[in-house]
């Protein structure tokens, strides 16, 4: 009888664990800490800050190796400044959200990984490159998140930016560089 009780308790504990795990993902009780802002505004991305200085679009993009990368859409380069706070800030994911709610991750061909962290008092400025369909242009939201796919309890900075003009000239993104404070 005692063994049966122990077995039932073990099953109950495992079942409850699976249920809680599923419930937390299906009906999350936690969410990211989102701060919003506009172009030219330093937005808190704990423990640091992020600022969008502007954005531009072009029909073609020349990568850091000098190769022109084709696309059926357009390339959008977002000029950002990332600054650490009391400690370094890390960005796990840069995304661009269009008015329809579609989320585009930064293109791996644009060197976004070079803008993934910044030290205190050392602003890092560079352009993050996105590849989007032409109909995504207009009002966009740049999102920087300190966590990846699961951003719950992470910090997110969501900054509005508008991009409408598309340059016919091939675009080269500004590579990250340290900026004077």
């Amino acid at each position, binding site marked *: 009888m005692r063994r049966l009780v122990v077995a039932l308790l073990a099953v109950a504990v495992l079942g409850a664990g699976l249920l809680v795990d599923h419930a937390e*993902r299906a009906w999350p009780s936690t969410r990211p800490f989102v701060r919003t802002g506009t172009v030219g505004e330093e937005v808190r991305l704990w423990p640091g800050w992020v600022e969008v200085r502007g954005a531009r679009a072009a029909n073609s993009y020349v990568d850091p190796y000098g*190769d022109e*990368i*084709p*696309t*059926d*859409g357009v390339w959008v380069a977002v000029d950002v400044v990332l600054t650490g706070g009391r400690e370094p800030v890390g960005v796990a994911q840069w*995304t661009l959200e269009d008015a*329809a*709610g*579609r*989320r*585009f*991750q930064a*293109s*791996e*061909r644009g060197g976004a990984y070079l803008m993934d962290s910044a030290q205190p008092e050392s602003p890092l400025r560079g352009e993050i490159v996105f*590849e*989007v*369909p032409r*109909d*995504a242009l207009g009002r966009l939201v740049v999102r920087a998140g300190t*966590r*990846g*796919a*699961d951003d719950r309890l992470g910090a997110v900075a969501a900054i509005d930016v508008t991009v409408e003009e598309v340059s016919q000239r091939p675009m080269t993104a500004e590579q990250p560089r340290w900026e004077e404070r």
Partner: protein
Amino acid sequence: MGDSSLGPRPLLGALRRRRRPIVGAVAAVVACTGATALLGGFDTVETTTMPQWPAGEPLDLGPAEVTLLDHAVRDDVLADYLPDGAAAWLIVRARVEATDGETLTYPPEVVSPPEGAVLPDGEDAQPSADRVILLSDGTARPQLHPGLPEEVAYLWPVAEPGDVPAELQVEVLVSRLEFSASSQDDVWRTPQPAADVILPRNAQMPGTFEDTV
């Protein structure tokens, strides 16, 4: 007088105690078998044939729409990357579009070639693609952005090019994107066959592929 514990009553008790685990085990087996039967575990399974899907027609695979186009067997592209024992690449060309409103890095398990056509990976006669390449510029493991369908090449090493039939029947696989707590990221899991597609042979891949790989 001898040992009183060997009397008839204590002996019966000892036998009963010894039987308890056996009775418990038998009861557990009976209970499990009964539960399996009640849940339909012993029902006769109807054999179903995989639906045939035409090449060139888009197939909705959940977070992506996949259109299998054609295939080629080539020994003049990426030849330096052929593994030992391989003489050529089987290249399956597909158009893939992310339809879930988010950028995807689509898994290599989208197409499964028939057994015997490609070089096995250990015991696996139908391994996932060795390489996944964006046809437009040769990018490996490409990102797929919503609203921007891309042509993608899936590559498997082939030991003998003659083993690949001109009309190649492949399985289309559908996977689920699930969050992995261990890697703290979304991962593709449990690829399952969804349809059979017969792919025609295409001797040439698009020009950009010829130039970029």
